[in-house]
């Protein structure tokens, strides 16, 4: 459990945030929204003007009672966006740095197990300067983990990586969280990452919390404006993987609104999976498509249309059963099709646009 209440003024930036959640939580928001300040406050790198921070019943900060546990005594690990490895030490020395300071009785995490899970055994003798971005980040995660922290803070740990590495490291993070039982506070501005990790989400904007709850709730209609970019809107759908069609190399995922097709094997048959769909990849049709290459068609009803003076409109479609999907279309299309709330429509998704590497088993 984490109870967090803090206010701090940093120049012109007024930060005032309060939330309470399980220790494993994702902090979501665009850059400058106050996520990183939250991390710095929990880690003890910043001192709030006023506030109370309690992690697992341990009071770390209470400005009224003049409590401020210094950063080295908090035992809270931090993984930064740019690794911040010690350049004068080898990978092995970096990994063992925090372990050496951890009390003997609390060294719960084994060196060998971490090195093996992260696949960094061949790097131990090297210096950080000779590592690639992905390798560096894996070492940084290992270093934080080996200090046997009570809580691990990850501040945009994938931001400096390319897409391939992102998926690879994200998979590792999931495996570590579940394997080593360390709660993770994960900071990101990416819907995909936050949806994939499936922890409760706290949404930040301009130094304040604007929404909080489970992934599916928070990324609902109209609740989140993640960024001004139309490419930033996504929706998350949960469906059951009912079959893998080997002859075409496709996975069939059943949702009450229709069938979703994915490239490759998306998981174990019979399991629930979570699919992230970018709003720009969704086409809206008023009749079932016939002569199109589109494989994934979901039927639903328009719940809301967000449009302003610009050329774009975001159409939220409620799907039968559960969930909804957001389609980014032009205002021209809305007018010509006569789209309005309450209208039955079909959401068309190009199968090749869905990233099968972002698929996560649901239900956590």
């Amino acid at each position, binding site marked *: 459990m984490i109870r967090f209440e803090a206010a701090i003024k940093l120049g012109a930036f007024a930060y005032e945030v309060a939330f309470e959640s399980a220790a494993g939580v994702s902090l979501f928001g665009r850059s400058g929204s106050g996520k990183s300040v939250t991390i710095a406050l929990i*880690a*003890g*790198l910043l001192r709030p003007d006023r506030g109370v921070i309690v992690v697992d019943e341990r009071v770390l900060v209470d400005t009224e009672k003049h409590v401020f546990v*210094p*950063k*080295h*005594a*908090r*035992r*809270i*690990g*931090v993984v*930064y966006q740019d690794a*911040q490895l*010690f*350049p*004068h030490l080898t990978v092995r020395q970096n990994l063992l*740095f*925090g372990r*050496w*300071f*951890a009390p003997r009785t609390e060294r719960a995490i084994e060196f060998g197990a971490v090195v093996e899970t992260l696949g960094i055994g061949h790097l131990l003798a090297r*210096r*950080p*300067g*000779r590592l690639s971005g992905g390798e560096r980040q894996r070492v940084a995660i290992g*270093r*934080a983990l080996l*200090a046997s922290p009570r809580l691990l803070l990850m501040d945009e740990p994938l931001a400096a990586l390319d897409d391939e590495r992102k998926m690879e490291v994200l998979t590792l993070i999931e495996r570590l969280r579940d394997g080593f039982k360390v709660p993770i506070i994960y900071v990101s501005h990416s819907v995909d990452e936050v949806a994939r990790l499936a922890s409760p989400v706290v949404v930040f904007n301009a130094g304040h919390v604007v929404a909080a709850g489970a992934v599916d709730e928070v990324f609902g209609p109209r609740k989140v404006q993640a960024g001004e970019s139309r490419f930033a809107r996504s929706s998350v759908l949960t469906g059951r993987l009912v079959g893998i069609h080997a002859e075409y190399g496709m996975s069939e995922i059943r949702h009450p609104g229709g069938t979703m097709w994915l490239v490759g094997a998306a998981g174990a048959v019979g399991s629930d999976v979570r699919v992230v769909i970018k709003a720009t990849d969704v086409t809206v049709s008023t009749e079932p498509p016939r002569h199109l290459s589109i494989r994934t068609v979901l039927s639903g009803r328009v719940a809301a249309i967000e449009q302003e003076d610009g050329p774009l409109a975001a159409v939220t479609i409620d799907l039968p059963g559960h969930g909804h999907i957001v389609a980014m279309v032009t205002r021209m299309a809305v007018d010509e099709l006569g789209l309005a709330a309450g209208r039955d429509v079909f959401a068309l998704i190009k199968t090749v646009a869905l990233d099968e590497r972002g698929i996560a088993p649901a239900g956590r």
Partner: protein
Amino acid sequence: MFELSADEWTAVRLSLRIALAATAFSLPVGVLAAYALARWRFPGKFLFDGLIHLPLVLPPVVTGYILLILLGRRAPLGAFLADHFGIVFSFRWTGAALACGVMGFPLMVRAMRLSIEAIDRRLEDAAGTLGANGLWTFALVTLPLALPGVVVGAILCFAKALGEFGATITFVSNIPGETQTISAAIYTYTQVPGGDAKAWRLTAIAIVIALGALILSEIVQRTAHRRLAQFE
């Protein structure tokens, strides 16, 4: 021509001893001062910074005279140190070392401060979140990363101490065998008839030592650059 006489040897040995002592004693204080200037915020920091740099801008004779006023045998502080700790500076080689240390100190602190300021503070933060307190962070992260600057600072201080003249001669005079350094000896030889050969030999030695210090600092800098290149 290149045979040194006994008193010339004495001057060379004395110069090296004074410069080494000045550097060795300034080093820990210099590191602390450089760290304080680079990392801490405290009231009077501006004044502290100015005080450290004062010997750099004051005429050396003035610095020597201030030392004499403060630490001379009859000055309150000088008498106190002599009576209670047996430490005497005036007209001793230790006084020469002190004057040289004071003169070299600003150069040393400048080099060290720059190299500490160049270290990403987030590395120190990272060490903190991994459980290292301030002292450990300094010993394991800050100091090793600032080491090239620290070494360069020490070499600069050493070179300055070797060439110091004005403050030393004002504070501890020019006593052969006690406070007569290479510089003071050269000055003395140029003042007496027939001293040119001696002055010339000591000049050559001064050039060799100074050049040696420069080359050493260059080597340290280059090694540091090579290592830094690995960091990228």
